[in-house]
């Protein structure tokens, strides 16, 4: 179940159901949306390393852990079901699935 308040999706200030708000310091990493988001799929979970393998931009690669956090906060991606063994993986999140435009 998503931790995000659905009413805050697509706004400038996403928040969780328990009232925590999108950390401002993650905003600078939104600049990688156009590089990383196309690598995430709706139904085929991708791990951090899957996504890293598709990136040539060295800065995007270095900042990928923080981009993942930023994109998760904004509903662009979400965690796939936890695998029994292996690292966490991501699929497109509610905002991406709905096709709602997001800030570049």
């Amino acid at each position, binding site marked *: 179940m998503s931790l995000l308040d659905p009413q805050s999706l697509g706004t400038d200030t996403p928040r969780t159901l328990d009232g925590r708000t999108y950390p401002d310091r993650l905003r600078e990493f939104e600049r990688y949306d156009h590089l990383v988001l196309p690598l995430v799929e709706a139904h085929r979970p991708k791990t951090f390393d899957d996504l890293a393998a598709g990136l040539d931009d*060295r800065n995007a690669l270095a900042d*990928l*852990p923080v981009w993942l*956090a930023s994109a998760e906060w904004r509903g662009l991606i979400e965690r796939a079901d936890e695998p029994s063994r*292996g690292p966490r993986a991501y699929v497109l999140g509610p905002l991406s699935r709905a096709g709602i435009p997001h800030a570049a």
Partner: protein
Amino acid sequence: MSQHRVDDLFVDRRGIPRLVQCAVLFIDLLGVRAMNRGPISQVRHHLIELDRAVTGRYRNYFRPESEWRAAFFSDTLVLAAPIAEPGGEDAAIRGLVRQAAWLQLALSWSDFFVRGGLSLGYFHIRDGLIFGPALAEAYELESRRAIYPRVILGPDAEAAMTRPNSHLLCDGDGWTFINYLDSLFDDLEDPVPTFQLHRDRVVERLGRHRDDKRVWEKYRWVAEYHNAFVDRDGLDGEDVHVPADAMTWRFEPFA
């Protein structure tokens, strides 16, 4: 960069090994020898937890085609970020600092604390062979300078980093170290339970090493770091501090 291209960096056209400018992380898992001395069921538990931390939480640090080359031996893990183009030092070190922060968090959840060094310099890693001055420096940082369960940056690595960077903190003795708890504030999940788990791990270690002041002091440093971080960043009134009595050395009466 593909696996092939990363591998190709470390050999010339004739297949002869070469040194490449890299950011190199060298970490030592503390207490691993003791973990191997208990009953086999306990050893197996430690093995499963270690495997989970290094392959099953944030990422698989040993994925063969990874951008970050890794080697593990005994209680030591080495991770390298090649600098593929001039001016790429900041990105390589920044990326490795984040990898190290994730790794420290994952290991601490699995009850492993680490000490380490991060260097910048020439390095070779291929087919299980690791070599080079950056490795020697990272080892020196880990074994002689870090002292406490922290991962410190060598002078060249520190100088190459853009400031400010919240993933780094400066310690009172002049060393810059990886502020691994900081990344918890990025996560969508509530950070409080993770801080509580980290606190509980530290308190357990402080209790376990009450009779060995040399080791106890190392975990006291972790407790100081934990509390300083909690004080600085605040957690909305949640008390996740390491309690003072756990951090206080005790003296016995002469009786």
